[in-house]
């Protein structure tokens, strides 16, 4: 090498060489350096270097133009080849594109959904400073809100929500509303609910006012102007409509159609510090960290109500849905599934492209001979796969537009597909296309470009050597595909089993033929005659009033004690306030003691029945007859009922006490029909008639208890159903790929089949010979999939306290299913090949 000053500036040389095509790089660089060397001799190194740099910089636009021009020429050529091969091999192109399109539409759908989930509650401007106060439960005592707001400057505001079931009347329209919330008037300053009419500052100032959503307005007022109109609540209170807000987005954890003032809603249970009944949110001042304010909130709660079952925490608004309600698990699971399905589609592409490389050997060989570099071939194949991905994307988008409404109504979301307003989505689409293109293009690109031209052209017929290469890789990919599919099948089956198990689980009481209504009007006051009137119908077996439904007992009690209780124990139990008929109506078993009885006048307030679990906690040999201090009532434990599931089976059965107590607690009416009700319509008509006499003016709405149970498992039900669809998709795409691969293999082995037949092989011999290769693959896929599936499914089942045993039979069933599907797919091609006349087969090629 010459001295350093004899060489042109390294960086400039590099820059220059980047702008050129490979074939001219050497000559142009040498031209440049020739002039440079001459200049070094004439005018010195420094000026020469200056010249070199200025030349390089001046040349950039020109070279760039040339580069783009030549790239376009190549692009045009690649595009032409793409279109031609698309037309020529319609079948394979169809398999490739439809597989990719299916995978991509799954992916985009999930992307939309994930985005929706991640943005839960984020539409509130103050989302980062809003926290939900949680402790024993997510509900807090009524006095906590005002105490926090007034006692601490760091807390800007506190808003309480309550959600009683009320009846709403406007003229002759009357419904029971579950979506009627009552909140502190400052709710609109803390939360962002855009107003269409009215003023957010003053809307709820007057306690006799109500703000409604567009949906609510449509339901009651249709085309009338709702502002200033009066809604009658519970047939007694008039509320004026003072504002209309936009419908609450589906990804909001607070969902209501009517919002009244908290002052209007006075709970009879009252302002007690130990009654946890209201969701309470606080807004912190700027720069106040939740951790700093938390001890003070804990103190104030502890000071007023010592019973702390779980420590107080502040849950950030943005995390409530994802983390506190556990949605993040589903986000992960679905993202994984989307990726899996996309991967299966990519594998199809890889497999078919490499398997069919023989058809392109001539093209690759000629290109190489003429002087194509490996890099330019790689570029071409990448481009091709990205083009495939783009065509698939268009099909996927069209599919999506068609499918999205169904998906929305199924998931009760309002996902919209609007690329322009959603840069995240646009980025996602581009990413998905590129990733799909690159993943599915990498192996074919590297594989196809690696062939040696001489070998290729010399042995066009001997190209078996070429397609034989990488067949192991292809088999591996098929195994991966089916392993994923089998995992999904196992998941689907076990989720189905678990849902069945829940459905048929012995709950400890009979949930069939039970209907329920919310208590309205004079029913509580006149309960005895109401019950008697109902029982006049022979089809009604029992009636009871209770504080909550047995599908979800939501009342918790603390601050009670029993004789001989460990002083350190701070019991925190569920409780039901009901009447004499609760236990017989539900069909609960009393294992010790007796039911409430009208013969004992003290039973209405001085008797408690506990469940087995509670009895176990108390620890007595027999709790019956023990004294029990319930909020000052000196009670006696009169009986023990067998454990029954009064909460979703995600949770273990908790201690429960059953008490008659005050009327104020009563909220629901449960009516038991006879198991073989002879005339349901007439029975219901009878109930409605009775209802009208006691709750005149209130709408008659009833539900079967089973609906309430289904509600408990709705998330799981939906989850199961979505997984089922995705599994179907995955299997379909896998089979599509296998079908293509088998078709190609059969085509390649035409000659072999011909020879075998000539030598005396029967059709079944040949078909079996073909299948032999594939069943090994599927068995291998099973071996891979089983531990994988077992791991994931036990994770999921852990969220249930009661779950099915995972039997090996499920695994075997899934494996067999996959095997049968795969073999059926292959055997179509195998039979087709085996049935060809040997003469034609041998003449082939």
């Amino acid at each position, binding site marked *: 090498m010459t001295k350093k000053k004899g060489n042109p500036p390294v960086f400039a040389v590099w820059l220059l060489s980047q702008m050129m095509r490979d074939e001219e790089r*050497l000559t*142009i660089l040498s*031209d*440049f350096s020739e002039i440079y060397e001459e200049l070094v001799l004439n005018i010195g190194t420094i000026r020469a270097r200056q010249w070199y740099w200025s*030349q390089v910089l001046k040349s950039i*636009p*020109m070279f760039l133009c040339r580069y783009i021009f030549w790239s376009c020429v190549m692009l045009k050529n690649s595009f032409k080849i793409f279109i031609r091969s698309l037309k020529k091999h319609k079948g394979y192109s169809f398999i490739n594109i439809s597989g990719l399109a299916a995978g991509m539409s799954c992916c985009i759908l999930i992307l939309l959904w994930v985005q929706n989930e991640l943005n839960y509650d984020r539409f509130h401007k103050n989302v980062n400073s809003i926290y939900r106060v949680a402790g024993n439960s997510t509900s807090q005592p009524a006095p906590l809100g005002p105490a926090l707001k007034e006692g601490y400057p760091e807390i800007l505001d506190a808003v309480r929500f309550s959600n009683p079931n009320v009846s709403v009347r406007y003229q002759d329209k009357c419904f029971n509303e579950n979506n009627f919330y009552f909140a502190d008037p400052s709710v609109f300053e803390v939360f962002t609910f855009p107003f269409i009419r009215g003023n957010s500052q003053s809307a709820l100032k007057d306690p006799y006012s109500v703000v409604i959503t567009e949906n609510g307005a449509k339901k009651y007022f249709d085309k009338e102007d709702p502002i200033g109109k009066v809604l009658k609540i519970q047939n007694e209170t008039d509320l004026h409509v003072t504002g209309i807000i936009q419908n609450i987005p589906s990804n909001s954890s607070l969902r209501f159609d009517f919002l009244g003032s908290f002052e209007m809603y006075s709970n009879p249970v009252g302002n007690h510090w130990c009654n946890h009944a209201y969701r309470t949110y606080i807004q912190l001042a700027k720069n106040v960290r939740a951790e700093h304010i938390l001890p003070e909130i804990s103190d104030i709660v502890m000071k007023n109500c010592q019973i702390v079952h779980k420590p107080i925490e502040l849950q950030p608004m943005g995390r409530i849905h994802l983390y506190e309600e556990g949605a993040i698990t589903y986000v992960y699971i679905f993202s994984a599934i989307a990726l899996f399905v996309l991967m299966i589609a990519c594998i199809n592409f890889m497999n078919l492209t490499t398997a069919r490389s023989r058809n392109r050997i001539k093209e690759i060989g000629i290109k190489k001979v003429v002087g194509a570099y490996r890099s330019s071939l790689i570029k071409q194949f990448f481009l091709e796969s990205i083009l495939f991905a783009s065509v698939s994307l268009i099909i996927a988008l069209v599919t999506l537009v068609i499918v999205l409404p169904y998906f929305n109504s199924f998931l009760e979301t309002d996902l919209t597909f609007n690329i322009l307003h959603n840069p995240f989505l646009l980025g996602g689409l581009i990413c998905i296309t590129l990733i799909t293109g690159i993943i599915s293009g990498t192996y074919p690109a590297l594989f196809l470009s690696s062939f040696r031209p001489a070998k290729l052209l010399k042995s066009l017929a001997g190209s078996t050597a070429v397609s034989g290469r990488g067949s192991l890789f292809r088999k591996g990919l098929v195994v991966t595909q089916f392993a994923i599919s089998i995992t999904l099948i196992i998941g689907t089956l076990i989720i189905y089993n678990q849902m069945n198990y829940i459905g048929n689980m012995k709950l400890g009481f009979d949930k069939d033929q039970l209907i329920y209504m919310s208590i309205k009007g004079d029913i509580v006051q006149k309960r005895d005659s109401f019950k008697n009137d109902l029982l006049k119908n022979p089809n009604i077996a029992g009636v009871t009033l209770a504080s909550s439904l047995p599908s979800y007992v939501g009342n918790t009690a603390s601050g009670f004690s029993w004789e001989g209780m460990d002083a350190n124990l701070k019991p925190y139990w569920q409780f039901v306030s009901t009447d004499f008929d609760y236990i017989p109506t539900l069909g609960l078993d009393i294992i010790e003691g007796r039911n409430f009885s009208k013969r004992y006048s003290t039973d209405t307030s001085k008797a408690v029945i506990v469940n087995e679990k509670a009895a176990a906690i108390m620890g007595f040999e027999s709790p019956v007859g023990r004294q029990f201090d319930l909020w000052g009532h000196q009670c006696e434990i009169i009986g023990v009922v067998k454990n029954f599931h009064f909460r979703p089976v995600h949770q273990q059965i908790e201690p429960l006490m059953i008490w008659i107590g005050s009327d104020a607690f009563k909220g629901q009416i449960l009516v038991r029909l006879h198991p073989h009700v002879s005339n349901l319509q007439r029975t219901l008509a009878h109930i409605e008639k009775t209802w009208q006499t006691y709750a005149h003016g209130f709408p008659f709405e009833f539900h079967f208890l089973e609906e309430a149970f289904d509600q408990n498992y709705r998330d799981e039900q939906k989850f199961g159903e979505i997984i089922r669809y995705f599994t179907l998709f995955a299997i379909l795409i896998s089979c599509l790929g296998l079908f293509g691969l088998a078709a190609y293999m059969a085509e390649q082995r035409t000659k072999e089949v011909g020879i075998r037949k000539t030598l005396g092989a029967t059709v079944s011999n040949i078909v079996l010979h073909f299948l032999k290769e594939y069943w090994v693959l599927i068995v291998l896929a099973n071996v891979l999939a089983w531990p994988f599936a077992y791991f994931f499914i036990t994770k999921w089942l852990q969220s249930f306290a009661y779950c099915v045993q995972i039997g090996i039979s499920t695994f075997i069933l899934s494996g067999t299913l996959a095997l049968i599907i795969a073999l059926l797919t292959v055997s179509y091609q195998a039979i087709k090949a085996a049935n060809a006349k040997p003469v034609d087969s041998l003449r082939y090629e």
Partner: protein
Amino acid sequence: MDIVTRLEETILIAILRLGNEAYGVTINKEVSRSLNKRYSMGALYFSLDQLLRKGYVTKVTRNVYRKRGGRSRTYYNLTNRGKKALHEARTHQKSLWDGVPEMSLNPTKSK
């Protein structure tokens, strides 16, 4: 009739003049000399590309042995089409000026 541009004409003439010695460096020098200013290398390659595409020149890459190692050079040669185009350019030029008296080009004196 396709008329070559003045720049193309200049480059073609340079290649013609240089004969067998026409490659990047020499062409650049020749063009710079006749235009009386330094001509950028990048621009030269761009123009050469265009001439190639129009079929006026061909190129061939040869290794040249010099004292210090070998160099690759891309030599350019006029094709018959190029020669014809140059010829046409010259006759066109001539016919343009035919009959225009020399003196009429003299600047007129301002009064």
